[in-house]
């Protein structure tokens, strides 16, 4: 017997497949038929968005904010110990590990905010400056 989470994960895979297929078909179809495939693609992606939001609310599809790695490419403090919340039906915004980011516990939903170091600037900047200095000196 599939759980609700399993069903949702399966439907997500189906939607990914059908979206991919319609993207390819829209590119392959004649100009008259292209809008038909693109319109259906949009409907499926809207449904995909709704489903992902629902799953995220229930903790079935936790998403790690991508800008952690973007903002701090060299200073990630964690050692890969970030753990997704348990899928217990309610969202538990309490990641474990040593990331320099904190989960908000507001009642409006899960939101994430990176914590800036006390020095006022990212360590990335000084790391990059040191690399550039080293490069200049080695020339």
């Amino acid at each position, binding site marked *: *017997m*599939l759980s*609700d989470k399993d*069903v*949702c994960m*399966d*439907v997500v895979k*189906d939607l990914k497949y*059908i979206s991919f*297929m*319609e993207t390819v*078909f829209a590119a*392959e*179809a*004649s100009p*008259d*038929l292209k809008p*038909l*495939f693109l319109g*259906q693609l949009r*409907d*499926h992606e809207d*449904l995909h968005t*709704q*489903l992902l939001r*629902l799953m995220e609310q229930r903790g079935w599809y936790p998403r790690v904010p991508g800008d952690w790695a973007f903002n701090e490419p060299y200073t990630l403090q964690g050692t890969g110990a970030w753990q997704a919340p348990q899928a217990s039906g309610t969202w538990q915004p309490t990641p474990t590990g040593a990331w320099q980011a904190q989960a908000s516990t507001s009642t409006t939903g899960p939101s994430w905010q990176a914590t800036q170091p006390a020095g006022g600037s990212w360590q990335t900047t000084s790391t990059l400056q040191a690399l550039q200095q080293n490069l200049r000196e080695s020339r």
Partner: protein
Amino acid sequence: MLRDLDLINHTAHEIQLLMNKASFLAQQVQDPVVRHLLHDAARMHQRHLATLSTARAQLQQQLGSTQPTLQQLAGPAGQSGARWTQ
């Protein structure tokens, strides 16, 4: 046009499967929100199927008016090979 028809047939086949699956899964899940979403998905697939069916009928009509008959393909008596003159 033949390629369009093939694309439509393939899409309709896949969407038919997804519609049946969504209807079946909607009866299996416990969460009413998920069930509602799956019902919406099934209705959406049904609407898409109707659109695809209309497009397929139009394409077949166009193809039927331009497609050569078997006699035309066979060519005149005594002449071998097909001719695409129409």
